[in-house]
């Protein structure tokens, strides 16, 4: 393209602790361009955005805005240089009106001045009209829907004279009709000379909306191409050309009887619909899909957190419909959740308490706790899972991420489940602990458990699973065998064939 780019990034790098999030990213954005940014979960898109908005500082590399090299970028300097980001969760004042929200963003923080309500309302009306939004300036923001709040954010960005607008998965929570409205707004912005960085997993959106697309993989720019010069298969190839960096323990057990059988299972509240598959004893069934595809939601349905309202769930041939987690546990389902810190290990409590938390009824005799029984059980699991700790009385918070995960796992194994659901079991865990956890998963399957493995780490799903269910839009769209190629899985996850 001609002219100086609005935004130019050269060889950006960024590490967090030991993990290298960006390893040399190049990117440029021109005025009047919609530039899509595409990449697998964890490819580095969010880190890139946070650097551009000034939330993170790069370790190395060059940022040029309008041709000028910028040495450091803070959130406020980024904003004054005309960079605005529309997040999925808008940062608005819920109790104040639309006009006031826009006003507070644009008027600056000076405290001693008269508020001109009429001018505020007029400006809000003008800005909203420019993007074709039908929202009353008088409405309180908390009464607006999520997409309406996004439109208010866009109006703020426009009012602030933004030249670069970043949209992070803007359509994630929108209906078809709302999407159309939003696309119209994006096109309007492009015509007025704004450069838009558009992040989305939905390829059809990228082809419908973007001028160019840049693909990131493992923190590096794989390539940039005009949308007209590339097809879906090409994009997918660019996204997944990742080599296997880990050796996974081989599957050694022949699958036995069916443990979990789902027929057309759905849950309106969480968007899960028409899920059908079986998991056998001795089998690791992987669930692949992009963020928001409904994998965790499905796990929560099976565990009774958001109970199913349609379809049939059978466990060991018996029809069940878990109403709540206690019910699910009683029937032999265990769920090791995604976010250890929030839902998993209680950092203040000793390891032993953490491990027996789900089986209090067995550890208690009447009202009396049996510390000896609790301790014995904890010691068993510490040995069995090779938890590195100072004994069962050490607090959960004293453990590394991988060992916390093992404690979380022990808690659910103690319930003697038939079905074990693991949600991102190795997220934030170092490589050594990761491979230990993989071996444990394999062994548990070998001992006869049915394992449902949810992971955003595509090589992990491919390496660990006997079969892979690919989810998209709340349902399982494809079931693939173990030796599937990564890019077949990615194509299914993105909805392409």
């Amino acid at each position, binding site marked *: 393209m001609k002219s100086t780019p609005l935004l130019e990034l050269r060889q950006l790098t960024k590490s967090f602790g030991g993990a290298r999030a960006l390893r040399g990213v190049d990117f440029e954005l021109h005025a009047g361009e919609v530039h899509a940014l595409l990449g697998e979960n964890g490819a580095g898109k969010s880190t890139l955005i946070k650097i551009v908005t000034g939330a993170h500082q790069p370790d190395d590399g060059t940022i040029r805005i309008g041709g000028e090299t910028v040495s450091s970028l803070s*959130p406020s300097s980024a904003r004054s240089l005309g960079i605005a980001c529309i997040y999925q969760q808008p940062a608005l004042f819920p109790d104040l009106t639309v006009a006031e929200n826009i006003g507070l963003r644009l008027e600056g923080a000076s405290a001693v*001045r008269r508020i001109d309500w009429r001018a505020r309302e007029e400006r809000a009306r003008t800005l909203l009209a420019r993007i074709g939004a039908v929202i009353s300036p008088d409405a309180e923001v908390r009464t607006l829907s999520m997409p309406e709040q996004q439109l208010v954010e866009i109006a703020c960005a426009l009012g602030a004279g933004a030249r670069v607008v970043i949209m992070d998965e803007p359509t994630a929570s929108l209906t078809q009709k709302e999407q159309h409205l939003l696309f119209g707004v994006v096109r309007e912005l492009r015509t007025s000379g704004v450069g838009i960085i558009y992040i989305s997993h939905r390829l059809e959106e990228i082809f419908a909306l973007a001028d160019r697309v840049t693909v990131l993989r493992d923190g590096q720019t794989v390539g940039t191409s005009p949308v007209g010069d590339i097809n879906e298969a090409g994009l997918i190839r660019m996204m997944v050309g990742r080599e296997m960096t880990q050796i996974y323990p081989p599957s050694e057990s022949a699958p036995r009887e069916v443990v979990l059988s789902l027929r057309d299972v759905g849950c309106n509240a969480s968007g899960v619909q028409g899920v059908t598959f079986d998991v056998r004893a001795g089998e690791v069934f992987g669930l692949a899909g992009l963020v928001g595809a409904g994998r965790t939601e499905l796990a929560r349905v099976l565990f009774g957190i958001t109970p199913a309202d349609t379809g049939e769930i059978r466990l060991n041939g018996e029809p069940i419909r878990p109403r709540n987690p206690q019910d699910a546990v009683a029937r032999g389902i265990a769920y090791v959740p995604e976010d250890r810190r929030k839902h998993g290990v209680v950092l203040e409590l000793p390891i032993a308490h953490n491990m027996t938390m789900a089986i209090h009824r067995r550890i208690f005799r009447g009202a009396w706790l049996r510390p000896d029984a609790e301790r014995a059980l904890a010691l068993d699991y510490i040995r069995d899972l090779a938890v590195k700790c100072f004994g069962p009385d050490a607090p959960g918070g004293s453990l590394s991420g991988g060992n916390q995960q093992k404690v979380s796992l022990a808690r659910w194994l103690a319930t003697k489940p038939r079905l074990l659901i693991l949600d991102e079991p190795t997220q934030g865990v170092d490589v050594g602990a990761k491979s230990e956890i993989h071996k444990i998963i394999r062994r548990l399957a070998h001992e006869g458990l049915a394992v449902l493995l949810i992971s955003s780490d595509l090589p992990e799903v491919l390496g660990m699973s006997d079969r892979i269910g690919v989810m998209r839009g709340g349902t399982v769209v494809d079931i693939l065998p173990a030796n599937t190629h990564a890019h077949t899985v990615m194509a299914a996850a993105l909805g392409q064939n």
Partner: protein
Amino acid sequence: MARYFRELSVAGALALVLLGLAVFAPAFYQPQPLLSLVTREAPTLIVACGMALVIISRQIDISVGSQFSVIGVCAGLLAAKGWPLGLVLLASVSIGGVLGALNGILIAGLGLPSIVVTLATLVTLRQGLNLVRQGEFVNLPDGLQWFGLSQSGGQWTLVIAALVILVLLGWGMRHVAAGRLVYAVGSDAEAARLAGIRPQLYTFLVFVFMGALTGLAAMMNLVQSPQVQPLSGSGLELKVIAAVVVGGVAISGGRGTLWGVFAGLLLLACIAPALIHLRIEAYWEKAIQGGIILLAVVADGVRSRREGAGK
């Protein structure tokens, strides 16, 4: 008018009570007792205005009663020493500002929860005062009561002063940027930060302002009697928080107006005299006030639930 629905419904309830009194107990409207009633509530109104700001900014200050007592005694001692009225007034407002700043530093500066910080200052100030004064009354010099005016002259002065402050603050909270920023900080501190507003600064200033208004209110209380009671402010915090909540200020911050607080305060203040005039046992006062508070909280809860479900 939908914006002021909550305020109007409190005003409606107040109007009903006043109308009921006009029909069943016209004696309530005798000018002198009524003026005395309103005068007694004038200091409370000033503290309630400050409390409204604190709660709008999503904090709370339960130490105002103790502050009020301490400032009352200090101001009384200064007046007894012969300080002129103007200087005593300045001193009370300043002492209030300093006490508020102490709360503000702990809450905004260190990020401590306001309920715990102000509980600590409530107890410390009250016990400190007890220890130093041993419950002694302060006798005020002649000529201080009612500013040396006639009783009704003094009463009118206080009532008008309180109303002027109410109107200025109520107007400022809507039409001056600083007022709107208090709402913004209370509605979502993180969003405020992103909009370039400094939430800690506003939280601090709101507490200083709360203290200064408490100082002013203590002064307005002082001139109503020839003596200062050592515990003149005990229970004041509950009274003003009740008025603020009944007046429609959301305890979760960001919502409500001083007009509502005014109506809420009058509504609660009418209950006791209304009971006397209607010859109902005075025991019922607290029960009825409690019922009104409960009703207000439940109404707000139902309303915000319904709005949340409408998304």
